[in-house]
């Protein structure tokens, strides 16, 4: 069931060191890379259909094409390693077991967009992984793989690790850039048309760790090899992180289109202690919850999850057994969202707090029928009235909990 394109070297001892990494194929794509034009590299990635693996699923090649040609300003690549979406723990596997794969992908991608400096924004808590990554970068510099004239070619690239400081919202790419510029992590207003991101006014691409770590395979093997996995609209593979009440939680690389049920019952060994499944949050906590009876035909790809009223998100699945209290789950997540709202937009700052407050009341046995209306009104206020997608996502998930598990809330009220 598993296909190892990105996770191929995860189990090889010391694959995080340059020597072992090179023995197992790392930096092999560079030889081919420098025989290609930057445009041809972008075209290859475009044809592969590679989609962003940080949650949004945007087409990577298309994003790269937004960088203006012949820019007189410097171009930057920024890697989003601010992994903070509850249920998501995949990027840290790449940083831990195969950091040279990420560096290789950064060289491939920077060359394609014409960047000579890349920043890796890693969440502040990941100190171990930051050190591991920095060691790999230092090794690459010492071996002439980074710096001026990479491996004797007429191309220079510098890579700098930037440490975050504990703010979920900085995983949103424009908040990340604000943070990288030394400010509070407040998301920026979206432009009307399509344009690149901007780092100090310079054209910039922001990509997730896993997205960039998928690039060397595409350069090495060609886009058709990548498209051999997954479906037409969701080509390739993704690192799926499964947590919660399964026998074997962990990160598994799977082609898009794999059956969700098979993953849970075969790969992950089923529900812990022989219990029954109650619900699954399929793509990090910010996507709509699914009841056990809804997952029958679901395959792990963008189309299938969308058709079932949820999203693939980050691929971080949280599995809950029959004994879990859904109102408690919802309360837990609203504490999270209330705490992590950046506070820039009033509907989000206040709305998340209101829902959290109402849930506290319901769980204390003091809820009334009126509270459903208040929560759903708050959802209306959260949706479509803020700068970023944080609040709309929160509104959708709140609605899904109330609609799909209303009887559990009713029990607490009566």
């Amino acid at each position, binding site marked *: 069931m598993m296909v190892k394109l990105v996770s191929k070297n995860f189990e090889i001892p010391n694959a995080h060191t340059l020597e072992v990494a090179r023995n197992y194929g790392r930096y092999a794509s560079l030889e081919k890379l420098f025989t290609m034009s930057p445009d041809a590299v972008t075209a290859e990635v475009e044809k592969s259909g590679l989609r962003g693996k940080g949650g949004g699923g945007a087409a990577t090649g298309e994003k790269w094409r937004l960088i203006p040609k012949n820019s007189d300003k*410097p171009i930057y690549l920024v890697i989003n390693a601010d*992994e*903070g*979406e*509850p*249920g*998501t*723990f995949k990027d*840290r596997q790449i940083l831990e077991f195969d950091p040279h794969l990420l560096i290789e992908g950064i060289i491939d991608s920077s060359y394609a967009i014409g960047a000579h*400096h890349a920043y890796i924004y890693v*969440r*502040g*808590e*990941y*100190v*171990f992984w930051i050190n591991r990554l920095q060691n790999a970068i230092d090794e690459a510099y010492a071996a002439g793989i980074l710096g001026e004239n990479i491996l004797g070619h007429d191309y220079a690239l*510098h890579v*700098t690790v*930037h*440490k*975050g*400081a*504990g*703010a*979920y919202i900085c995983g949103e790419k424009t908040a990340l850039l604000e*943070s*990288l*510029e*030394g*400010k*509070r*992590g407040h998301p920026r207003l979206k432009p009307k048309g399509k344009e690149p991101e901007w*780092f*100090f006014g*310079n054209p910039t691409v922001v990509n997730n760790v896993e997205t960039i770590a998928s690039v060397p395979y595409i350069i090495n093997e060609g886009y058709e090899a990548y498209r051999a996995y997954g479906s037409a609209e969701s080509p390739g593979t993704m690192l799926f*992180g*499964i*947590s*919660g*009440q399964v026998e074997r*939680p*962990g*990160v598994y690389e799977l082609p898009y289109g794999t059956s969700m049920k098979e993953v849970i019952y075969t790969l992950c060994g089923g529900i812990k202690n022989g219990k029954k499944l109650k619900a699954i*949050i399929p793509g990090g*906590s910010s996507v709509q919850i699914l009841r056990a009876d809804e997952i029958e035909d679901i395959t792990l790809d963008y189309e299938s999850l969308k058709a079932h009223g949820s999203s693939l998100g980050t691929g*971080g699945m*949280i599995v*809950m057994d029959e004994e*879990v209290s859904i109102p*408690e*789950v919802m309360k*837990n*997540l609203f*504490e*999270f969202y209330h*705490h*992590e709202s*950046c506070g820039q937009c009033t509907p989000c700052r206040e709305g998340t707090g209101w829902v959290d407050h109402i849930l506290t009341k319901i769980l204390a046995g003091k809820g009334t029928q009126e509270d459903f209306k208040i929560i759903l009104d708050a959802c209306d206020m959260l949706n479509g009235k803020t700068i970023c997608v944080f609040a709309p996502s929160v509104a959708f998930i709140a609605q899904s909990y109330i609609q799909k598990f209303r009887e559990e809330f009713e029990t607490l009220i009566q």
Partner: protein
Amino acid sequence: MSTFLFNQDNEEKFSALLERYPDKSSLMLPSLWMVQYQEGWISLDAMQFVAKKLGCSAMDVYSVASFYSMFLLQPIGTHHIQLCKTLSCMLAGAKTLQEHLQNRLGIKAGETTKNGKFTLSLVECLGSCGTSPCMRLNDDYIENLTLEKLDALLEELSK
């Protein structure tokens, strides 16, 4: 005027980092980290120093320092226990671990023991959902936590 100064190591780091960004305002988070590692926390005095270094106002620095949850604006205990409370850890029993820690240390979440040895914080998702429950002890992750593991650890740290 601030009395805080970077130690030599941090001065050198600061100068090296200046070369790596198009604008020195990017050094805000790195500078605050350097202050925190040097002093254990970030005082108003140190913020004035950072402001001078970056050519901005002390209020700008305060605005940023107070936004990020990992920046400590007051001193804490030697051992900072940061227990993850978010969903996957909750499903794995984080609440029981929290109660156990509170009982053993005699403090509530957010407090420091009288001897200054332990601070207990509840934090949001640490990205260890597959190895939950999880906590950080200062900068180190401790995963697949159990009550036994926690007791052994506290025993060791109390010596």
